[in-house]
């Protein structure tokens, strides 16, 4: 059997991280729950959970000093997977109740209230992954568990940027189309919760572990 991949689940006081730890373990990873710089840097993959308000999540990440270390991982080409608000923070900014909070700005786009008749978007929805997606390999037609009120609904990546491969974007729809996932070299992020998405989610996590 191949050696188990070492994954750090970033522990900064964000909701139910236990299920993320358990789901990653069940997918075959050796998991550490931590916010220590050493643990963030010295692992095969960093898992960034996130629930609650955008501003609160950015603040909490700042409070444990994690922004800098996440940035260093990305700069060094080391894998990172963001989930839910941990996905949203990699865009330029989040707008909640009229308040703009700068994100990490890895990708262009604003996280805004979903323009849908029923919000939060809660439940199992389909996704449309791009051709060649590694994360969705073999589970392209499955449903995944979403729970969120905000999302990136416009994607305007400048494909003319030199020396940058355009990210692979997965879309979903709730009232309007929105970004459900981004695969961008070492940095991947998902609006839904693979750790709560049953067997399909488990396969996605195994797919991610295989890329590490």
């Amino acid at each position, binding site marked *: 059997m191949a050696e188990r991949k070492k994954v750090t689940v970033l522990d900064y006081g964000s909701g*139910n991280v*236990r299920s993320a730890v358990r789901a990653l373990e069940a997918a075959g990873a050796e998991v550490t729950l931590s916010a220590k710089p050493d643990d963030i840097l010295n692992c095969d993959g960093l898992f960034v959970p996130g*629930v609650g308000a955008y501003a609160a999540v950015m603040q909490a990440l700042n409070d444990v000093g994690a922004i800098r270390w996440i940035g260093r991982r990305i700069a060094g080409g080391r894998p990172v997977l963001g989930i839910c608000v941990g996905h949203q923070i990699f865009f330029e900014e989040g707008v909640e109740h009229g308040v703009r909070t700068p994100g990490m700005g890895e990708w262009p786009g604003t996280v805004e209230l979903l323009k849908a008749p*029923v919000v939060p978007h809660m*439940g199992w*929805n389909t996704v449309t992954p791009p051709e060649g997606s590694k994360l969705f390999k073999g589970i392209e037609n499955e449903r995944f568990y979403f729970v969120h009120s905000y999302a990136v609904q416009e994607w305007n990546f400048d494909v003319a940027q030199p020396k940058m491969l355009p990210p692979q974007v997965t879309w979903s729809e*709730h009232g309007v189309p929105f970004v459900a996932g981004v695969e961008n070299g070492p940095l991947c992020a998902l609006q839904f919760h693979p750790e709560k998405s049953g067997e399909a989610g488990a396969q996605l996590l195994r797919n991610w572990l295989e890329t590490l």
Partner: protein
Amino acid sequence: MSVAIRVIPCLDVDNGRVVKGVNFEGLRDAGDPVELAKRYNAAGADEITFLDVTASSGNRETTYDVVAKTAEEIFIPLTVGGGVRAVEDVDRLLRAGADKASINTAAVDRPEVINEITRRFGSQVLVLSLDARRTNDPNVASGFEVTTHGGRTGTGRCAVAWAKEAAERGVGEILLNSIDADGTKDGFDLEMIRAVRAEVTVPLIASGGAGGPEHFPPAIAAGADAVLAASIFHFGPNDMIKQVKDAIREAGFPVR
């Protein structure tokens, strides 16, 4: 495509054991909530809800233990209600492994607790459990009255107005349980679902009255985003979740 209609089995848990009983073949320990949650998970449940009916708050430790054991085993959302009164209760449930908490009487008594909980953890963690019954009281505009203590105590408050207020205060969804329909097996209270749906934009979970798979599509047509039931799953055939989902799908609604 769009988000699937969620089918949610509800387990009443008393001091660590499922009460009301169940009828699964080949289940050695029918009273173990962890085993049952696993069964329902394998049978295609979209979420699991535990309702802690333990009378003594001193025995809540057992509930946290059950939640933790369940969270080890299933990878779909788990909601826990019963005895949730304050931010600390939600914090403990989340730490034990619950994804959401549901609140009922405590929110009727002190609505501000909704703001306090959702400010801390976000709207998505809090479900308002609303037990409502029909009334002739002219002061209750919708004709549906909020009750507490499992439907035994009337409050004289309008259920539709309360649902609207709770959503404005921050609850992420509303579990609407019809006290009149509950246990009748005659179907959901469709008028009640329509009345609340017309006024709130958060997801609505219909509960109370399900007697067969044919009762579910009308509840969804009336505006429910999810359906919750207990005895039809506990006492029905082992494939009841599938039967319910088939009925919903045949009526033209998406299911997982």
